[in-house]
């Protein structure tokens, strides 16, 4: 039992799986000697050597293509992209190849790979270091997209992603990397894929989020508890596919729903979930679904990033909008 933060949990997951599976490699920029700019791969070079801990040239398109080539040979390739804003050069390879090889060869060639990247803002990083890439990949059939919100899920979902026989995009909550710690058993146990996690039960309103925003959403829920508002807090975690069954079940119970995301509002996971509710859960809704999200602007540079990223007060405002239209009896 160790007490770890998210970045340590990721490091533990990578190490334990590399020990378990000699067929697994990690690759990316500055992940070897340097241990990764966020230290996610620290120690791996010393333990597993240059062959399995691959410092690549500076080319994300190449990194994703290389991961594809490796994975087609049965090598479990786990690539790190330094920041999710630098994943755009990988889109062609991931969408046109990683997501498709199994389907176009009817199962002959597969791509068991993971591409990890820190995602989202809030750490006063430079330009292009604070983007939210969920939709870029979640829209693509053939892929899975995960975004963990705490150390235990970072550990368990990353293991599940690595062992999954299909390509997985793993978006890590940058600003929560070192925000808090959790007790973690480094037992190599994976968590289930394609599943949302109910973090707190409640019957008044369903709050949905994932990744870094889970933290602020929980704080908002705490604040409302004090007013006697019982929030059901769900970590969506899997953005492709989305576990709509769990979400619909919760909304059937509460009749109210607020979805919190950092990504720009339009075309984000919040919209996909709200659409699912409009099509399959409409009759259980007492009030309109509210999306609390980043604005439809470009992620601002550091000085304005807090204007863009939803904070607890914005989340509470969103919840109140729902409660005003459908007060709790």
């Amino acid at each position: 039992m160790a007490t770890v933060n998210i970045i340590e949990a990721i490091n533990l997951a990578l190490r334990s799986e590399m020990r378990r599976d000699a067929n697994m490699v990690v690759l990316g920029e500055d992940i070897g000697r340097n241990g990764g700019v966020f230290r996610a791969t620290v120690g791996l070079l010393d333990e597993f050597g240059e062959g399995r801990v691959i410092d690549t040239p500076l080319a994300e398109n190449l990194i994703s293509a290389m991961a594809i080539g490796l994975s087609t040979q049965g090598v479990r390739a786990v690539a790190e992209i330094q920041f999710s804003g630098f994943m755009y050069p990988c889109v062609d390879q991931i969408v046109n190849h990683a997501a498709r090889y199994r389907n176009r060869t009817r199962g002959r060639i597969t791509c068991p790979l993971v591409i990890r990247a820190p995602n989202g803002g809030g750490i006063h990083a430079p330009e292009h270091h604070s983007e939210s890439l969920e939709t870029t990949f979640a829209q693509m059939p053939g892929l899975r997209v995960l975004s963990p919100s705490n150390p235990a899920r970072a550990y368990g979902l990353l293991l599940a992603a690595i062992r999954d026989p299909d390509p997985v995009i793993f978006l890590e909550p940058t600003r929560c990397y070192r925000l808090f710690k959790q007790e973690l058993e480094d037992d190599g146990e994976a968590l289930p894929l394609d599943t949302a996690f109910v973090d707190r039960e409640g019957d008044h309103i369903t709050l949905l989020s994932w990744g870094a925003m889970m933290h602020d959403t929980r704080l908002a829920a705490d604040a409302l508890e004090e007013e006697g508002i019982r929030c059901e807090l769900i970590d969506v975690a899997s953005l492709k596919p989305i576990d709509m069954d769990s979400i619909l079940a919760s909304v059937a119970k509460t009749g109210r729903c607020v979805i919190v995301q950092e990504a720009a509002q339009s075309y984000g996971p919040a919209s996909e979930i709200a659409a699912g509710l409009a099509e399959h859960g409409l009759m259980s809704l007492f009030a309109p679904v509210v999306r609390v999200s980043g604005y439809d602007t470009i992620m601002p540079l550091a000085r304005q990033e807090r204007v863009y990223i939803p904070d607890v007060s914005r989340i509470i405002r969103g919840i109140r909008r729902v409660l005003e239209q459908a007060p709790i009896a």
Partner: protein
Amino acid sequence: MKKSRQAGKTQVASFEVHHCGLLDAQGQALADWPDFAKDHEQLQKMYRVMCETRAIDKKAVALQRTGKLGTYASCLGQEAVGTAIGLAMREEDILIPAYRDYAAQFLRGVPPESTLLYWAGDERSMNFPEGTPSHHDFPFSVPIATHIPHAIGVAYAIKLRSESKVVVATCGDGATSKGDFYEAISSAKVWNLPIVFVVSNNQWAISMPRERQTGAQTIAQKSIAGGLPGEQVDGNDVIATRYVVERALAAARDGEGPRLIEALTYRLHDHTTADDARRYRDEEEVKAAWSRCPIKRLRTWLESDNGWTDADETEMQAACDQKAEAVAEAYLKIEPEPPQAIFDSLYAVLPSALQNQREEVMQAGGTND
């Protein structure tokens, strides 16, 4: 480092690009030949493979013209490159081909009817048969050049496992303008990977002539950007092409790392059956190119040196046409795939979130056409 007289100028690197040709367009031998080319059997086999490929190619175009096949990309005039690659590779090697390398794919075990099935629009065509080398080869990629950097990962896996396989990754001249091609060239030597890059420079990328595709005088010299050896070969000379590819494969197998080969050839057909090259290409140029046809020159040689008779020729051509017919029949007999198949290879296990959609397709029964 050679110091020059000029102000503070020192030469720090120099490079040469060479061209190799062993059988010219007139069917005359240039210089000495490698052993395989001194063997009549081998020469006739190379000839037969090229002729059979051309017969099947011709049949494919005919099927498309009569509405029995979708858009098709012909390899007319480029049969030598695929033949040379297919014969030079070992079973365990891995081919990451471009779409005009049918000859290589056939030699590796891809059933020609699968090639037709691909252009008809059926994914099963890329599930190459077990028990053949093609089973561990890649299908070609339509997004130009995007498959080239896959070779880096595949070759890295080979090296990681200390296997003695080599990856052959091929593309066209147009493909060499894309970042995917360059990123592979730029990094292959970093790990000294066992890769042979073969570019079929057929002088055109749809309507774009080679001269306007890039400022480079040769495609071979692009290897210099990654510190690889690069060479040109007469890609319509099946003997020279097989010779340089075999040499490159041997070098890679011996740990000498990657190489780039530019095979000079010519696209005698329209880009695809959906294209009309007369819009942008001079008929005269095409006529002239026919005189450099890879099949014609080898036949001339076989006749002059190999005792190849008109009877032999007629017999072999008949056999090739029969083969093409049989391929077409086999293709036309293939049953359609059930509609729900569009879900069944999407993931190892279909996520439950998608079950309803699959159900809907099952109920609707689909609308295969």
